[in-house]
């Protein structure tokens, strides 16, 4: 074990409705869907049409600019519809599931006995590749590039996040197989970021870094920045902890198995806990009948409250998300709210009274608690970004579309989630994550991948 890296900056937002360590296995949902919109910058080319019958692992579409990257059906069945939005943009490909459809047969082998190219080919064909993202930019890795290392975070510090110690503890052997497969893809090492209390401490062929501290200590970007910060021209790959299991299962069984655990959490959930279902499951299958009765609007979020995506009850859970959070919408007025003591509202500053009881958990709604203003209060962002970065000045460079400055100030090291807390604490309610993505998009457009 290496020594613990202590991160002091950051903020744990204590919210009500954390998932209890109980697991319930849900029946196979009647429909699942893959959403091309989950993949940043992807131009999908369809391989199937409505009424086609597919097995799990059959390609549904591929990337126009990287045709080798396949996006496959998480469960076998019949393609019932391809839903399109404005300008015929493909929004979701919906499959009516059939438990007997089975899976495409892939190679069943110990990844250590395979060559790097064989592993890569198997991941591309089976639809595992899109789980691998690259830094800079947090987009899907290019199969032709060589990463200097691969980083995996085994804990999530975001509010109400799932505890991977609980979710993965019985599948560590599979996790190891997944790691071994990923190890064939890089000449460098695999770095595992773990929490002080962890079940991942005995894995092999990895370098283990222990991180302690408040959110965003669990963000892989923060872990990279505090061990081997990315410089210009370097590429590091990252993958979510649960997604490593998919790869492990693929090599252990030769079949794709996208069984996945979601934490259902948030103050609007009657009994927050973990649900085992499948990638691409409809959110209704997870939340229906499990929310508190309310006469106000509720907001369903695929992901956590800082970085997740708001989805309707008819939608499907996001490709990369491991949790579903439900909070009050908060679209109501509050009389003289800014002048009230507001004992029940959380604030990072001590201008409200949440400092009185540090251990109290709060109900947070989606109200912005104020209107957007010019940037006034300095020194707030810096307190929640445990990286060698000047967040305010990086954001200013982004607003000015100044590529040189963005590069100098560290655009390669961040993605939206790393600065999400800045957006939370901002007095002026500036849309930080939107800005970060705008900067990244400009970099991709001007500099290429």
């Amino acid at each position, binding site marked *: 074990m290496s020594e613990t890296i202590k991160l002091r900056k950051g903020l744990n937002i204590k919210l009500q409705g954390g998932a209890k360590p109980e697991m319930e296995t849900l029946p196979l949902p009647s429909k699942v869907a893959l959403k091309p919109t989950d993949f940043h910058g992807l131009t999908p080319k369809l391989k199937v049409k409505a009424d086609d019958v597919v097995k799990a692992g059959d390609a549904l579409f591929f990337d126009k600019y990287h045709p080798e990257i396949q996006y496959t059906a998480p469960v076998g069945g019949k393609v019932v519809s391809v839903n399109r939005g404005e300008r015929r943009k493909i929004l979701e490909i919906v499959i009516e599931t059939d438990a007997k459809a089975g899976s495409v047969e892939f190679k069943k082998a110990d990844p250590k006995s395979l060559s790097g190219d064989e592993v890569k080919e198997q991941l591309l064909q089976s639809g595992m590749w899109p789980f691998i993202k690259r830094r800079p930019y947090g987009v899907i890795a290019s199969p032709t590039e060589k990463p200097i290392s691969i980083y995996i975070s085994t804990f999530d510090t975001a509010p109400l996040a799932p505890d991977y110690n609980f979710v993965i503890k019985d599948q560590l052997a599979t996790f190891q197989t997944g790691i071994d497969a990923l190890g064939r893809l890089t000449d460098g090492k695999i770095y595992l970021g773990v929490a002080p209390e962890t079940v991942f401490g005995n894995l092999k062929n990895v370098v283990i870094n222990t991180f302690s501290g408040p959110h965003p200590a669990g963000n892989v970007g923060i872990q990279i920045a505090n061990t081997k910060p990315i410089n210009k021209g370097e590429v590091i790959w990252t993958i979510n902890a649960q997604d490593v299991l998919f790869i492990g299962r693929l090599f252990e069984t030769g079949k794709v198995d996208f069984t996945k655990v979601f934490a259902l959490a948030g103050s609007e959930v009657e009994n927050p806990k973990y649900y085992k279902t499948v990638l691409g499951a409809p959110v209704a299958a997870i939340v229906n009948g499990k929310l508190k009765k309310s006469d106000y609007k509720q907001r369903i979020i695929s992901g956590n409250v*800082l970085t997740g995506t708001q989805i309707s009850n008819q939608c499907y859970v996001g490709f990369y998300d491991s949790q579903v959070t439900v909070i009050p919408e908060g679209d109501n007025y509050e009389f003289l709210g800014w002048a009230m003591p507001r004992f029940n509202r959380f604030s990072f500053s001590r201008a409200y009274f949440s400092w009185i009881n540090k251990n109290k958990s709060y109900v947070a709604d989606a109200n912005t608690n104020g209107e957007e203003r010019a940037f006034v209060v300095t020194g707030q962002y810096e307190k929640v970004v445990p990286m060698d970065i000047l967040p305010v000045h990086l954001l200013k460079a982004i607003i000015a579309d100044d590529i040189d400055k963005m590069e100098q100030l560290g655009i390669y090291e961040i993605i939206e989630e790393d600065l999400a807390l800045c957006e939370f604490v901002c007095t002026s309610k500036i849309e930080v994550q939107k800005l970060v993505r705008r900067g990244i998009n400009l970099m991709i457009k001007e500099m290429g991948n």
Partner: protein
Amino acid sequence: MKSLRKFLDKNKPLFQPGGKFSKFGSTFGAFETFLFTPNHTSKSGSHIHDTIDLKRTMTVVILALVPTLLFGSWNIGYQHGLAFGIERGIFENFIFGFLKVLPIMIVSYGVGLGIEFIVAQIRGHEVNEGFLVTGILIPLILPVNIPLWMVALATAFAVVFGKEIFGGTGYNVMNVALIARAFLFFAYPSEMSGDLVWVYDLAGNKPVDGFSGATPLAYAAQNATSEIASFKDMFLGLIPGSIGETSTLAVLIGAAVLIFTGIGSWKIMLATVLGTLFMGGICNLFPANEYMTLPAHMHLVMGGFAFGAVFMATDPVTASGTEKGKWIYGFMIGILVVLIRVFNPAYPEGMMLAILLMNVWAPLIDYFVIESHVKRRLKRAKIKGNA
């Protein structure tokens, strides 16, 4: 409250584009968000937001200023009593002074907010909260005898030329309240300096024997350090001076509020104090005249130092934006205060000019802090590249 909300909802369309009173949309919006925190919910990025907003931030600063306002009001009565040998109780002193301060505050807020509302309307912006603090800062840094029309003129000048032409709250280069004061200081020096302006009604009337109305800084500038009030009197604020500046104790209460809530930068406050002690200490080491022998810590309680360090230097818009820059910025203010006070006979008080000067320098400090940050990052990349 429901009926009020209903009334607002019913009349809102009139003020929206196309409505009968759409010209007053910003004004309506300002009152609406004042009465009710808006029902806006997150549309992108983070779904939850901190409870704090600019209104609350400004409210906390105003609360922090209340002790100086209360003490300042009382001190007007107290000084007036001293000057003319009138005996009054604490409460009577306070009322006497408060009635003198109130008109100045009303003029400052009236003129400033009026301009803010008009400009917001012309630009089609929301009305920003910045002036809520400026409006109370301006009276607190003026002498009690200031004619009201001068307050109005200075406020208008400061808001228009100090802030709005740069784009409004958040974009100004120099502290707006200090611009108002500097404007008066240079345009009407006779109303802003000398021994007669600090105590109510002193000009033209004969005080009791032995009362001069001179501030400690005025004595110091004349190298009459023996005449300066005791450290204790200056700390408590029992001296003539601008309305809100005299009591270091009252300012410290405000500082505690700002630091505890995390709204004022303790780094700037501490750096300013350290800079003053540093420069004051150097003067003490090489005393060429009597003023230079004045112990360095006396600077901390004289004149507007404490008030400026806590409420003016920490203005986040005009101070350095980088955390390292804040140390440099504060320290430089501290040095400049002493330099101006001790070595410039024309300006007994150096705080205003020191802060304004460093306001102008703040972007330069930030520039160098960012450059050194970038250099360090580049070095990291190169070391790695070679390895």
